[in-house]
């Protein structure tokens, strides 16, 4: 059901991990619907020098996170903001219909990370809106058994 590219990015995700003292971190999605994405950015002179992700979710969620990080690495903030979910999906040779929301989540995670970077540095980026929802409801701290 997944394209070869999706499978490739799922099994060999690019840029997976964390960045210590990241310049921007964005987390979107929620455990309720089973997808959470977190993107870390290292920004120098308005250019994304490094980007990492962590994702809890299905194969498509991992693959779209991975592809999104590839697409923005080395780009300016403005260029990164122009990358849409459709571009991420296209770069993966398409996604099954039921998984298109995963690519949207990748776009949102990226925007959330850029928003965080902008906030920390007192930069106003035109058109950039704050992340829709905060997932830090600490749902993961619920009882194990």
């Amino acid at each position, binding site marked *: 059901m997944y394209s070869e590219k999706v499978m490739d990015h799922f*099994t060999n995700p690019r840029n*997976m991990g964390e960045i210590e003292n990241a310049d921007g971190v964005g987390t979107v999605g929620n455990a*309720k619907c089973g997808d959470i994405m*977190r993107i870390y950015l290292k920004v120098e002179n308005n250019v994304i020098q490094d980007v990492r992700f962590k*994702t809890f979710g*299905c194969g498509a969620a991992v693959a779209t996170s991975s592809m999104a990080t590839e697409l923005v690495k080395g780009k300016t903030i403005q260029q990164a903001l122009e990358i849409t979910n459709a571009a991420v999906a296209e770069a993966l040779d398409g996604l099954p219909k039921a998984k298109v929301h995963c690519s949207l989540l990748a776009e949102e995670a990226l925007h959330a990370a850029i928003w965080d970077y902008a906030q920390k540095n007192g930069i106003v980026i035109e058109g950039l809106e704050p992340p829709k929802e905060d997932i830090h409801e600490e*749902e993961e701290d619920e009882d194990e*058994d």
Partner: protein
Amino acid sequence: MKETIYLDHAATTPVKQEVLEAMLPFFTESFGNPSSIYSFAQDSKQALEEARETIAKGIGALDREIYFTGSGTEADNWAIKGVAESYRSKGNHIITSKVEHHAVLHACEYLEKNGFEVTYLDVDADGIVDLEQLKSSIKDTTILITIMFANNEIGTVQPIREIGRIAKERGVLFHTDAVQAIGHVPVDVNDLGVDLLSISGHKFYGPKGVGVLYARKTVKLKAFIHGGGQERGRRGGTENVPGIVGMAKAMELALADMEEESARQRELRDYVKERILEKVPYARLNGHPEKRLPNNVNISFRFIEGESLLIMLDMKGICASSGSACTSGSLDPSHVLLAIGLPHEIAHGSLRISLGESSTREDMDTLVEALVPIVEKLRAMSPLYEDFVKNNG
């Protein structure tokens, strides 16, 4: 090509060679329509009635109480909507549980939209229905209790005999979806006090596309499919003779060595469950530890998502299943896992393996060997795990 390890027998099973051989003549040689009058069709007619006898005997029923259907889902729909229609003058209340198969739940929801009242019983943390709640839910207008025999996801076996007794005492009909139970645990309709029961052929090494509704002779059962006079005028349509013959053969074979085979699978089940829980931290067994199907293991792995897990297992040649939303096309994880009280993100990370006759101890070892690094890999990717580690040192 790597070898496939099939651990999804609750989804479907292969047709056994002997079953296939029993079916084959009815496709080509003895293809007559059982309703035809000439002698050539008598082979089909006879095979059909012999199959009915075999299945009746298998569940302790009378031949005339067996109705062939196209699936377990059809049997569930017929039982529920059929009773609702026939007993409407007596009442409009139906009792079921929150962990039923969708064939039952969606049939009940349909009836709710058409003037019926449905009570969905809670289950405890092991998935067992609350019998006190059942008793207190029964009222004058209650016409049917429909509670599954064994759960398809978590394997929990319900106290069917107790439910049968309660139903009888209160004069309410009792239907059970026994699709997952047949061939694994003994099923006798009189012993259990069941009035209606659903069976599906392909869950016990029979063919797909054929099922059974058992309805006690005292149950007023109206026609569900209108047509010819087949199935005592209650289920029109030329009978699926090869399918029915195959299902009967499969039941005969399954019951012949059930005790032995169930014991073998139960041992494998407990072995693999313990190995997984021992090797993988932050994992828990879902469903009752003992009152469960001999072939079902359902484990939740915290911080990871089920579909990812299934794809990675698939790449190792292992076929399994999950209660994750992503495997069902909806956003919500399994209603069964939510009903036993799992938080969403833990419900998303569930793995169901269901053993079969071909399953071996080597398969279990292969599964565990594959599973450990996959869970580690997915956790390394998981922001939930990252937060957990940071918060808990």
